[in-house]
């Protein structure tokens, strides 16, 4: 398992979701992806996308304009 970072700051939804989706396709089951955003919509949209695809949201938080979502890639995924 390894931890990865994704800078999705200054992107408006759905771009942070798209970047998250595309990045996860290249990761291994159990890997974690820490996504940094500024669009507050990402706080809702990335977890929603994760629920649909079976990925675990380890944490989702916002401080001021900074939104951080940590996703753990599903262990039984067939495709992101």
């Amino acid at each position: 398992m390894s931890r990865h970072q994704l800078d999705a700051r200054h992107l408006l939804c759905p771009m942070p979701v798209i970047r998250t989706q595309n990045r996860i396709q290249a990761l291994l089951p159990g890997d974690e992806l820490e996504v940094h955003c500024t669009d507050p919509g990402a706080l809702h949209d990335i977890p929603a996308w994760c629920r649909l695809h079976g990925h675990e949201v380890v944490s989702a938080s916002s401080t001021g304009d900074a939104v951080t979502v940590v996703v753990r890639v599903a262990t039984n995924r067939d495709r992101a």
Partner: protein
Amino acid sequence: MTDPRKAVALISGGLDSLLAARLMLDQGIHVEGINFFTGFCVEGHTHAIRKQHRERPKRNNALWSAEQLGVKLHIIEVIEEYKQVVINPKHGYGAHLNPCLDCKGFMVGKAREWMEAHGFDFIVTGEVIGQRPNSQRRDTMPVVARESGAFDRLLRPLSARLLPPTLPEREGWVDREKLLDLNGRNRKPQMALAAHYGFHDYAQPAGGCCFLTDANYSRRLSDLWETRGTKQYEFDDIMLLKIGRHLRPRPHFKLIVGREEGENRFLAGYRRQFIHLSAVSHEGPLVLLDGEAADEDLELAARITARFGQGRAAERVTVEVTDRSGGARRLTVAPLPAEEIPEGWYL
């Protein structure tokens, strides 16, 4: 037991695509959703930017639809490829700069590519005959099927019984008798079906989910093409058209005026690419100047900047003007009275 047939459903976030996909799930079809981001999607951008909207709950309607259905949703960014649809639509535009028929053909074509790449069997859309004046007519539906390359692997469950049987129907993958025969712009059947399935709080965007159906947005895009002398755009261009007041006081420059704090912050992200202005003696907007400006133009821009700030009633307002290289100077000007801003300046 054989594996279920697989359909990829175009999910816009609206009611029709939600219902079409739901009808497929009812028939035991494995459904996954696909949604395309063109850059023109209304999807909450202005809400994300404008501070006054931030307290409202915001959602991506396509993701919401997928959650209602319990299906995966694949969101595909098509910004670059989509340019040709907008710039040079084979079938022309609708009431504004909306190339709806070309757009539908493009999206179904992308869904076909996805279907083929992922081993799916057919494509589902929420199209209804007569729903839209251009892209959803009985005579244009075959055009979409043909030009997308989907042909008879394109199923419109909401109007299927009014259309020739498609491959999924002929092969018995889906039961045609359980499909619908909706026709026209009356939304009551869809609303009744939504109630039947327990779908509440679904999105009902006026004019659809695309900025190109909006008259004001289309006027701004036309202005961009005319003044640049070329029918092209970059992603940043079409984002900026969504934000702020746009005024063109002279043919060779326009101003983008932030309307509130959130827009000012968003525009600030672009300030190094533009001459920009903001009042320093009073609170006021950040203003980007798109184009070239001589000294008299900068003075006019400063007066307009002052007009939209807290100093609008003051005799003099000091405005800082910063060029693209970061060099700044200050102009003290009289705010331009509202009556001296012709309606024709507004885009």
